[in-house]
Structures are given as C-alpha cells and as structure tokens.
C-alpha cells in the first residue's frame, strides 16, 4: 500500500496530461467523464489507504513514500515524498470525494461552453495540486501544491477572460495569495536554518530544540501564509471577487478545499505553534473571530446569491482560525470537514438555481422556486440547517465544539462567535427565503418584478454577461441528474457528518481519536464541566433559532422597513474595506511606482546621458574626437584604460 501512495496524485495528473494534449480531440462530454473518472479513482485509492491505516496500531499510522530527491543542495535536501497519516488522509477523503462529485456536476453545468475541455484540464490540475499540498511530507512539497492550487485558482477565476472584471479578479487572487506565499517562504527559511530540515516528521522530532523566538517567527509567518490562502482579515479581499469563476469552481476551490489549506498547514505545524510566544495563538484567535464577525455583517446585505455564500465562507473560515488559535485543532478540522460538505452543497445548489434561472444570480429576481426546483431546494435546505447549526445537523456539532474552546480561551472570543452564529442564521435564512419562498419575481419582465434591480443595472450600464439573466420573463427549471445527483449525495453528509465526532458518548468521538496522534503536542483539552458544555450548546441553539425567526419575520412577513434598516449600504459595500485598498493602489500606490520609473528614466539614466552629452559637447568644441565612429570611441577607451593601468601600476608598485 505504501508504494501505491503516489497513485492518489498520479491519477488526476494523468487526467490532466491526457486532456491537455488530447482534450480537443476527445471533446464534450467524454473529456468530462474522463476527468471525473481520474478523480474518482483517486478517491478509491484514498479509501484503500484509509482502511490500511485504520488497521494499523494507533501510533504507527503513517505511511511514507519517497519518489525522488527534488532539491539536493548541500545541507538542503528536499525529497518529493508523501506522508499519509490520519490528518492527510482525512483531508484527502473529503477533497477527492467532493471533487469527484463536483467534476460530475460540472459535466452538466459547463455543457455547451466553448472551453468545456479546458475547464476539466484545470480542474484535474487543481485536484492534483491540492493532493500534493496535503500529501507532501515536507513544507516545500506542500508549498508546491500551495502555489499550484493558487495558479489553478487564477486560471479558473479568469476562465471567462473576455470580461475585464473576471481577469482582474483572477490577478487579484494570485497577487494577494503571493503576499501569503511570502510568509510561507520566510517560515521555511527559519525552519530550515534552525532545524536543517523541512520534513514534517523530522520537524516533530527536533522541534524541542527550537528557540522560542524562532518558533514564534515560524508560526507568525505561517499564519500570514494561512491568512491569505484562507481569506482572513485583511487579506480576504480576493475571495468575494473569486466568485467571478464558474460556480463549480467556487464550490470546489473557493469553499470546500483550497481555502482550508491555511488551517491544514497550521494544524500540521501545531508542535511549532505550541512552542511559540503566546501572542501568536492569541493573534490567530482574534483575527479568526474578527473575520468571522466582519464577514457575517457583510453577508447580511448581499443580493448576489454567490456573494452571500462567499462572505459566509470567509466567516466560517474565521471560526476555524478561532479554533486553531484556541488550540482546538481537532475542532478546526472537524468544522473544516462539515463545512466542506455543507458549503459545497450550498454552492452547487446555488449553481443549480443560477443554471435554472437562465444565468441570473441576483436574489431579488428569485423567490418561490421551491416547487419548481424540488431537489435543489430540499438539498439546499439541508445545507442551510447545517450551517445555521440546527440541532442534529453537522454544523451544530462542529460549531459548538469551537465555541466551547473559544469560551475557555476567553469569554469575549466566545461572545463574538455567538453573535456571528446569530448573524449566520439570519443571513442564511434570508437567502433561503428570498430564493425558495415568498413571491416569484421572475415571471414578469425585470422592470415590473424587481424595479430596484432594474434601475441599479441600468445605472451601472449592465446589459448582460455571466451572472445577469434575461430582461424578460424567466422560465426556471430543475437541473438534470448530473447536477442533482451530487446534491443528493452531499445532503446526507451535510446532515450526518456531525456524528464523526459526536459529543454524546465518548466512543462517538471518532475524529478526536483518529487525529490525536497528529495534534498531540498542540491540542488544548477542554476542562469545562458538563453543565457549562450544555449551557453553551443551549445558548448557541437558541441564538440560531432566533436568527431564523428574525429572518422569517423580516423576509417572509415582508417587513420592508426592517429589511432596509438591517441591510445598511455600508455593509453591502463591505465596509469600504476593499474599495479603500483599491483606491490606494490605484492612487498613491500607482503614483509611487510611477515615481520610481520616472527616477529611473530621468535621474539614473539621465545622469549617464548627461555625462555622455557633456563629453560630446566638449568634443564638439575641440572637434577632435567627435567622429561618430565607434572604433574611435573604442580607441579612446583603450588609451584611457592603458593610462589608468599605468597609473594604478605605478601607485601599486612604488607605494
């Protein structure tokens, strides 16, 4: 089994290579099926590895395979090697599993697109990179996957590159992520110079010798990397824009898999974080909590069905960072898994809605779709109840777990988490009510059904493009089986994944026992009594139900006045955070860059040309040297050189 680990990344890589060179010939839909099969086979290989690990004793659960030496440079030797342990296998199971479903879904969603095969080329390359990220046995191989998924994300966000907005969003995602990659790289420099290795198992063994300052530097720089990749304040700005990509991409990359890479790396390096100064975990927890709350307030006022989910993703990732900062690595991974299921489900559901709504993405044009899209709406409702933490649904368990640890870290962090839970319940209910319930706003032309939206679009001059539906009446329809089947498979997982780590009985804590060997150095242990635990769970439940009830009143009882009070324009604009950065970059930032270029042209080069002009003018006066022939200049230089040589020689010899 050990020797077959390479198959997990090799299969999607093979799919990528085949489609890259033969994709056009294979064509639609076979290319999509081939890509799906490649990832599905990878999933099966992961399942096999899982059972193999499961059958070995707890402390020997690590399969390694080294393919070849990647970088052999003096003391710096980095192998292209894989490490399958409980953490990486947990990640791989949901990555390859969900990716298979999303591949299948994409065959339906991308039907008829001019670049159908190219889409699957990128998707397979993405899955390959994501597997490398998770399966790598050292930081540098993880970094290979880390940048690989970043590049794929760039390709896929700017997939419909004809629109400038999409192209800019792709570039923004890559460049913002590069800021994080800088942190990741510096963390590697510190690790290598202190420990002489980048290998995870060796880092684990030798980390006790790390100085606290070095450990702090590594942890802080890794967090910078993680904050960019996992869209935390202040580097989250790329993720909402990333929704410009096709919806399956949003589901796969920008909700379920790639954005969790930051949590993964921090969990992987938990022994180092445990050794760092205490302000690093505090910073991680505070930024996580702040991001969770901040993004939730923005999600309240979004009208684009995907934007709501995008900010919701940022918010949920904040929860995971709150967990990591509180030392609750298992809770973070637990929430990552449940989130992957319900957020993939919600995104695919929204894609199904968009598809059925003839490409319309604005929720003000939807409503009452429940009966027309029965499968989509039923599964979407499961995802909704999971994310709001309805008792029994997966999000209930994983969110409670995080809130418990946050409470033990600091009641203030817990309070922020609870307020976020309230907002989450509110904005997700708002989405469900606006899309699936209430009155239909698509059965008439846009001016009648959604006058506000029509005016907005007219003012902005938007007449078409991706995400903008027809002006006239829309005839929604349920999507085909390729799109609904993944929804029906994901829904039970979103419902039941909470029982992976059921708090009711100690034997039910499967995930905790499974991950324990990997996180044993950094993991905090909850000390609260049962009474406190039940109390916290009750508060979270009540708050979730309250959010749903409030949304019910505002959006189903049509309290337009309340809605206007809640949906503040400043929140719709994301607190002007992103636009301030953009304004700064386009204004002073650009001017500063221009100034450097001006200096180069006029001062640095100007000095050279000035000297040249001086020489030429001087020559022109004496009219001796100015012949315009290079050979004369050369002669001049040769003479000069000889004179100089003579001068230095005399000095050197007779001094």
């Amino acid at each position, binding site marked *: 089994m050990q020797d077959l680990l390479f198959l997990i990344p090799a299969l999607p890589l093979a799919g990528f290579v085949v489609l890259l060179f033969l994709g056009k010939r294979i064509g639609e839909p076979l290319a999509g099926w081939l890509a799906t099969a490649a990832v599905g086979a990878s999933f099966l290989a992961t399942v096999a590895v899982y059972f193999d690990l499961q059958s070995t004793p707890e402390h020997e659960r690590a399969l390694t395979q080294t393919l070849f030496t*990647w*970088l*052999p*440079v*003096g*003391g*710096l030797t980095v192998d292209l090697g894989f490490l399958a342990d409980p953490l990486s296998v947990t990640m791989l199971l949901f990555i390859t599993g969900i990716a298979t479903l999303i591949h299948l879904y994409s065959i339906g969603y991308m039907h008829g697109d001019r670049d159908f095969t190219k889409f699957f080329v990128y998707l397979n390359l993405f899955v390959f990179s994501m597997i490398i990220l998770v399966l790598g046995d050292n930081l*540098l191989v993880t970094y290979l996957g880390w*940048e*690989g998924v970043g*590049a794929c994300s760039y390709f896929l966000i*700017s997939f419909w*590159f*004809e629109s*400038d907005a*999409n192209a800019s969003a792709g570039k923004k995602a*890559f*460049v913002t992520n*590069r*800021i994080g*990659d*800088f942190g990741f*790289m510096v963390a590697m*420099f510190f690790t290598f*110079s*202190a*420990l*002489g*290795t980048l*290998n995870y198992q060796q880092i684990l*063994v*030798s*980390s*006790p*010798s790390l*100085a*606290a300052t070095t*450990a702090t530097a590594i942890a802080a720089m890794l967090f910078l990397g993680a904050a960019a990749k996992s869209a935390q304040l202040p580097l989250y700005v790329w993720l909402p824009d990333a929704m410009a990509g096709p919806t399956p991409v949003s589901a796969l990359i920008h909700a379920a898999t790639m954005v969790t890479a930051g949590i993964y790396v921090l969990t992987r390096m938990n022994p180092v974080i*445990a*050794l760092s100064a205490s302000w690093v975990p505090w910073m991680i927890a505070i930024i996580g909590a702040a991001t969770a709350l901040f993004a939730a307030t923005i999600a309240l006022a979004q009208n684009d069905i995907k934007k709501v989910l995008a900010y919701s993703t940022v918010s949920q990732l904040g929860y995971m960072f709150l967990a990591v900062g509180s030392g609750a690595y298992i809770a973070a991974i637990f929430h990552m898994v449940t989130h992957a299921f319900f957020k993939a489900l919600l995104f695919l559901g929204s894609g199904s809605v968009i598809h059925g709504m003839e490409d319309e993405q604005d929720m003000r044009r939807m409503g009452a779709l429940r009966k027309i899209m029965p499968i989509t709406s039923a599964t979407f409702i499961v995802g909704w109840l999971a994310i709001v933490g309805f008792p029994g649904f997966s999000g209930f368990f994983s969110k409670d777990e995080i809130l418990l640890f946050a409470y033990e870290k600091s009641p203030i962090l817990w309070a922020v988490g609870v307020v976020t839970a309230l907002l989450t319940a509110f904005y997700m209910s708002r989405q469900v009510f606006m899309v699936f319930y209430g009155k239909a706003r698509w059965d008439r032309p846009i001016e009648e059904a959604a006058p506000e939206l029509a005016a907005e679009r007219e003012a902005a001059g938007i007449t078409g493009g991706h995400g903008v539906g027809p002006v006239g009446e829309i005839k929604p329809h349920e999507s085909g089986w390729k799109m609904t089947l993944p929804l029906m498979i994901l829904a039970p997982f979103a419902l039941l994944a909470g029982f992976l780590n059921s708090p009711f009985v100690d034997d039910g804590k499967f995930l905790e026992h499974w991950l324990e060997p990997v996180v*044993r*150095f950094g993991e905090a242990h909850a000390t609260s009594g049962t009474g406190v635990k039940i109390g916290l769970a009750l508060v979270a439940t009540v708050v979730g139900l309250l959010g749903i009830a409030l949304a019910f009143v505002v959006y189903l009882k049509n309290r337009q006045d309340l809605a206007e009070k809640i949906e503040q324009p400043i929140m719709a604009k994301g607190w002007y955070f992103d636009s301030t950065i953009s304004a700064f970059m386009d204004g002073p930032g650009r001017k500063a860059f*221009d100034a450097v*270029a001006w200096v*180069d042209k006029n001062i*640095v*080069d100007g000095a*050279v040309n000035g000297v*040249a002009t001086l020489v030429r003018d001087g020559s022109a006066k004496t009219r001796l040297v100015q012949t315009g022939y*290079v050979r004369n*200049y*050369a002669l001049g*230089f040769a003479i000069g*050189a000889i004179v*100089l*040589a003579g001068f*230095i*020689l005399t000095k*050197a*010899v007779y001094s």
Partner: protein
Amino acid sequence: MSTALLASSAVPSAPDFPILTYVILLPLIGAVSTALVSRRRPDAAKALAVLFSVATAGLAISMLALFETGEAGYQMVVHATWLTDPDIAWSLGVDGISLWLVVLTGILFPIAMLASKPHGADGQDDKQYFAWLLLLEVGCIGSFLALDMFLFFVMFEIVLVPMYFLIAGWGHDDRKYAATKFFLYTMFGSAFMLVGIIATAYLHARGGGPVTFALPVIAENQGIIAVTTGRWLFLSFAIAFAVKVPLFPVHTWLPDAHTQAPTAGSVILAAVMLKLGTYGFLRFGLYLFPEAALWAAPGMVTLGVIGIIYGAICAAMQKDLKRLVAYSSVAHLGFIALGTFSLTTQGIQGSVFQMMAHGISTGALFILVGMIYERRHTRQIQVLKGLQKPAPIFAAVFTVVVMSSLALPGLNGFVGEFVILQGSFLTRRWWAVVAATGIILAAFYLLWAYQRVFHGTPDPENADFAELKIGEGLVLAPLIAIIVIMGVYPKPIFDRIEPSVTRLVTHIEDNTDYKQPRVATEGDEIVPESERRTPDSADQAHDTSGEAAADDQPSEGGH
C-alpha cells in the same frame, strides 16, 4: 609551472580529443563560412549557420557525457602556450560552474537563429546577421571556458562587436542610440577590467609568483597580493561585471539594448551575455579575491536586493512589453547577485542554477514577444488586447513561460530563486526576507501585463491575431520542456554544480576567516536522544515544551 598546477586540478583521464577547443572553433568556422555564402542565397546562409550552431550544441551537450560528476576541478583541460613571458596561454577548462552555461549557450543559439527573421532588404544582409551571431557564440563560449585571464578578456571583448552590429544593423527604430549606449557602457566597464587583469598579473609576479595570466595559478597564490590592493583590484573587475549583469545603478543600457535589438539579439543578450557578468563575479571576484569578496559582500547583496525590488517596480510601469521583460531581467539578475555574495554553498548553487533558468525563461519570453511584434508590428501593451481569444495555444505557451518567470514551484524559476533565498537567509537574513517580497512584485507585474495583453475582448485589430504556427511551436517546445524538467527534477544539474561550488566556498574559507554557517543535518545532531519527541513521551514533551524552548537554536547565525 602553471601547467603542473593546472594538471593537478584537472581530471587525470582528460580526453585526448580537445573538445573545448572545437566547441569554440566550430562556430568560428561557421561564422567565416556563412560570411562567404553568396549574398543572393539568404536561405543558404541561414541553413548553414543553423547547421553550425546545431553542431556546436551537439558538442556542448556531449560535454555533459564526458563530464565527471562529483569532480570539483577543471575538466577536459586544453592548454597550449601562446606567449611564454609573460605566460599567456590558450587555456580552457570546464567545471560545474561553467558547464551549464556552455550547455545553455549551445542550446539557445540555434533556437534564437530559428526564431529570427532578419528582415533585411530582400535578405541581402542576412548572411552578415547570421555570421555575427556565430561570432557572438564564439565569444560567449570562449569566455565561459577560458582559464587564462588574457584569453578571457579577449573573448569578453569579442562579444561586444557582433552585438553592436546586430543591434545597430537589425534593431528597431532607436537602434543607433541603443547600440552606441550599449557599446560605450560596456567598454567603460571593460577598461577597468583590463587594468585589473594587467595589475593582478603584474603584482602577482612582483610578489614572487610566476609571470602568468593563468587563472588557477594566480588564484592559488592570491595571498601574495596585499589586502588593500586586492580590494582595489576586485573593484576594477566588479565594475566591468556590474555593468554586464547589470546591477543597479549601472543597468540603464539594458532596457534600451534589449528593446531595440532584434529578437535573436535580445534572446542572446538576456539569456547568455548577462551571465558573463554573474559568471565573472564567481570566477574572478570570488575566486581571485576571496578576501575582497567577503569585504564587498554587504554592498553587493544590497545592490542585488535593490535590483530585485527596483527592477520589478520599473517593470510594472513599462508601456512597452519588451521593455517590461528587459526590466524583469534586472530583478532576476538581482537574485543571482544576492546568491553569489551570500557566500554560502546553497546561495551560490542557486545562483548558478538560476543563471541557466533565467536564460531559458527570458529567452522564451523574448521569442514570444518577438512573435507578437511580427504579427502586430507593435509592442505597446495598451494597443494589444484579448489575444487569448484568437490564439489560445499561443497564450498557453506564454502563460507557462510567465509562470516560470514568476517562480511557480514545479517550474525552473522557483528552484533557482528558492535555493538562492534559502542560502542567503543563512548569512544575510534580512536581505533574504526583503528579496523574497520580489516574488510578490513579480506576480504583480507579469500577471498585470498578461491580463492587459491576453485577457479582455479583442478589438478588431487584435481579433485576427494568428495562432502559433507549427514551426514556431517547434522552436519553443524544447524551451518549455526544459522549463518543466528543470523545475521537477533539477538533481542532475545540482549534482554537477555542487562539487565546484563547494570547492569555491572552501577556497574562500581557506583564505579568509570566514566560515559559512553550519546547517544542521536532518535534526540528528540537534536534539539529544532524551529530548526527542516520541509518541510515548507525548505528554511529557507537552509539559516541558516551555523549558525545551529555552535552548537556543543550534545554527550559527551568520557572520
């Protein structure tokens, strides 16, 4: 005397066939033969020139087969006395530092020629164009192989003449200005180097050594030269090489020369000729004057880091696509300067690797920009738009090269830059951290340029941009393959670089009080057995982690 020393550092079983002489002579014969072809047969001239350059490439690649991996000294040494007093010799040799540069030169010349369309009036001047290119190859390979300072200088200067004529004769609108600027700038640097060479040889003889220009002999006896004098001599070489690299602030000839040169000229200029400077720093700066190199290192790494940031910012603001690529070279070469003067084996190995990696990627970028110019007769970024729609394959190839240039792991640019940064971090921590921000800027200016040229909806002028032709694809395919192979499996390259670089660093350590920081190996020596984290001691390790952290890190923090 010198022969004995040379032989001692050479592989005993050097082949009888003087392959190094032939790899220089072959393009020379090619240049002469091409010049003799009738004016009316431009196609024959091109075919002949390509034939000769392919044969040279064959010889260069066969050097790989003859090269003894694991051997640090000069190999395949050729030594023929030219003058006896002073001792000037036709002395050639190759080691791990020069090997890949010769291979790079051999590979790129035929590709540059095949990608060229000289566009002379009815092709009458074509043969000169190709003859100049072959003469350029003579100078480049000769410089990398010369083990005699005088011979090196001759080769180093030979390069200027064909490049001057290539820019002035076949360049773009502002070619005369650019060519003259290039020539004067470089001659300015060379003048100092000539002084340095003569003075070094003279002072070496005066100190009691043999009267010779043989590089290995002088390097072994470099202690003869007084410390202060050595520093002056180092500076005289450094000026020449700094102009050639180019380092900030003597880089301004480069954007003009690169932009105005014909495609093949730009390719060779960026890919090969800039490396004469970085190679010179290694072969003459560090090797001849280790004490002075150590003394100058803080200044040199600072110039390198300034180049990385400054070059990237200037690149971002260029309006001309070719000028943007030219400025990106300033940034990339800054990394090489940083690695070289980090004086660690990792940093220098990374630099040698990056010399080749940059050559391939930037060569490919210039070829692609040349193809855009041929189709659209403009290089202005703002006039180009949406080219990905009419030419998706062209755009895909361009994307791969851009990704290589912005150091995406898995492609060649990353390997070089990462190893350089990691190596410099050991001795120059904060320089390396600042330099690492260069990867953010590189992503910004390259992707922004890509977006403006390839993304968006093409207007009518750009809508029928021709897709990549098969011939063009065949020219680019080897470069793309090398970009991927160097990124995924660089081991064979590093295996051949490493012994020579280790020897160079040892040479510096032997002649100065510098000791490169020791890198811990695999954590074995750092953690006492009792403190290891094992599954059994998990709880204990958790409890005592605070105390364990109090021990300081084992590596020496630099000098």
